């Protein structure tokens, strides 16, 4: 499940890359400014370039609402792993290259004024590989969603588990799934967005388990690498194998969404998938369940967000607090 890491094989560039980028799909030369304006989607062929975690957050969240959590989480070297280069050196190099501590960023933000718990992966950091830090961030993002009864969004971009952490990385599948199972029992919604690439153990854990699974067009999504599949099995691969559309055809993705529509679709879906208390099924708009009032650790965010949400009149007295509700659910789960 882990990944090959091209990041650590520096090569000389023939041309300075700061001005333009060549579209790997249609070959078009694209000015970076133009590309940025189109959310890094090729205007000619709709090729979706990868996004950094920061760019992804800016794309999805209301401006200025993101509050990072657990920014200080950092990998340790549980195995004392050395190949051509010690694992801590690889991490340090990736940190310098990306400005990130690890391959995921997580926190609380708002989408159309409504708070969400979000975790976003960054393929630039060691191929988005999942070690204990990534697993922990996904788990905590889910726990925050359960505690605050707000939706969980995870954006995956990963080659899989980080092999330098060995079975500690493998166990992150179990860790993240464990929390996601509690999340499901607590009836808190989870949207999984798969971007290029979402493979290996990340696909086989939190990425595939969304209440609704979304994917960007033509993202590589699969469990085993295509070359592994082809090499091992000596079998021709079907056309479009392991691309978003292939996964859609085979029933694993609800919607393949163009990047320009992503935010709109998330907003739309979140209007239906609301943390439920299980007491009714009327589906009527404006029910007080959605009159969420952030508590506890969310108070800082609440100062920014609450005016936009607007608590329903008279609802505050009649509802149990979100914490009471969450703890009640957790015992059942």
């Amino acid at each position, binding site marked *: 499940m882990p990944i090959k890491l091209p990041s650590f094989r520096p090569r000389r560039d023939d041309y300075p890359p700061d001005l333009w980028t060549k579209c790997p799909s249609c070959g078009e030369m694209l000015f970076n400014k133009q590309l940025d304006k189109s959310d890094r989607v090729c205007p000619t062929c709709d090729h979706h370039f990868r996004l*950094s975690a920061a760019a992804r957050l800016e794309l999805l969240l209301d401006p200025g609402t993101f509050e990072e959590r657990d920014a200080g989480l950092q990998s340790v070297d549980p195995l004392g792993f050395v190949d051509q280069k010690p694992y801590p050196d690889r991490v340090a190099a990736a940190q310098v290259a990306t400005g990130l501590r690890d391959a995921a960023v997580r926190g609380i933000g708002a989408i159309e004024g409504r708070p969400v718990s979000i975790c976003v992966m960054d393929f630039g950091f060691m191929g988005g590989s999942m070690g204990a830090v990534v697993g922990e961030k996904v788990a905590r993002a889910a726990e925050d969603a359960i505690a605050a009864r707000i939706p969980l969004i995870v954006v995956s971009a990963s080659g899989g588990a980080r092999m330098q952490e060995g079975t500690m990385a493998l166990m992150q599948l179990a860790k993240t799934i464990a929390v996601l199972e509690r999340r499901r029992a607590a009836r808190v919604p989870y949207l999984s967005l798969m971007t290029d690439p979402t493979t290996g153990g990340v696909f086989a854990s939190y990425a595939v388990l969304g209440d609704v699974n979304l994917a960007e067009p033509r993202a*590589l999504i699969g469990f085993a690498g295509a070359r592994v599949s082809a090499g*091992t099995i000596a079998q021709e691969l079907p056309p479009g194998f392991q691309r978003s559309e292939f996964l859609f055809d085979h029933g694993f993705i609800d919607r393949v969404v163009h990047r320009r529509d992503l935010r709109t679709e998330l907003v739309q879906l979140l209007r239906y998938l609301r943390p439920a208390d299980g007491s009714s099924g009327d589906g009527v708009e404006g029910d007080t369940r959605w009159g969420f009032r952030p508590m506890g650790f969310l108070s800082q965010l609440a100062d920014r967000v609450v005016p936009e949400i607007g608590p329903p009149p008279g609802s505050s007295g009649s509802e149990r607090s979100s914490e009471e509700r969450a703890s009640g659910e957790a015992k059942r789960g």
Partner: protein
Amino acid sequence: MVDRLLHRGREAAAPGDPRDEVWRRVKLARHLGRPRTLELLGEMADEVVELHGDRGFGDDPAIVAGLARIDGRRIAFVGQQKGADTEENVRRNFGMPHPEGYRKAMRVMELAERFGLPVVTFVDVPGAHPGPESEERGIAEAIARSIGLMIRLRTPVVAVITGEGGSGGALAIAVGDVVLALENAVYSVISPEGCASILWRTADEAPAAALAMRMSASDQLALGVIDGVVAEPGEGAHADVRETARRLKSAIVTRLDQLAAVPLDELLEARYRRYRAIGPYTEVAAPAVAQPPSRGLTDRLRDLLDPGRWAAGVPLPGSSRRDEPPAHEDV
């Protein structure tokens, strides 16, 4: 590939080398004569009733599942099943399950939960089947759902790594209240060959990768991934299947009795905490990133800082797909 699956042709590292010891174990874990789920149960159990089918697509011979009686205790079992020879290996797909194998496992585990039977699993898999049909029918989904089921399954679960614990295909049936391993079993996030070909650029460095990944049972015990190691007789499990089964049976029965004494709610909570807590990390004071600067700027900065990235307009090595390849190689 078939060579590897049949465990032919690979030589150990130089004698005296620390890689030697772990590689010896890898070879034992893959030994063609190593007892598999049905052989072990055949020795251990008074009765074995295999159940078949996933109720949706097929019956995967690479995973066996059913009901058995061990030392008077009725259990449900699930295990991977490699073949004892080439013919059986072909029929059982070298013990590499398709999605329907994991779905059969889930069905039998749910049956066990419904009727209060503890579950014992036997893990011995190079990895889930990596071919197109497996992807088409959702091997990743099946693995993820099986892990999720085992975490919430309201009955005691003992998992035993008996041979190769190969990545997600192993973990899918290896979540438990107690995880045991036979002495020469191995457990890893990727095959040593796969790891070596990525990080050392040659599969020949597999023994070095095996050492680096600390994939032996004793290392996994030290890491806390498994809870107990069952010693193998003589030269290894293949040399004395009956004695191996006897020791394993004793270990399993002891654990089942311990688990039966724990109220289910406590058991479930402890199982949850075990997996929730696994994997070490540290926390440093200062956040690494401030509020993100404007979109695009970060990306361009990183394109400059990280010349290996795709945005540099240079095709990546190993590109074989029409559009931008992620150059990953996962197992």
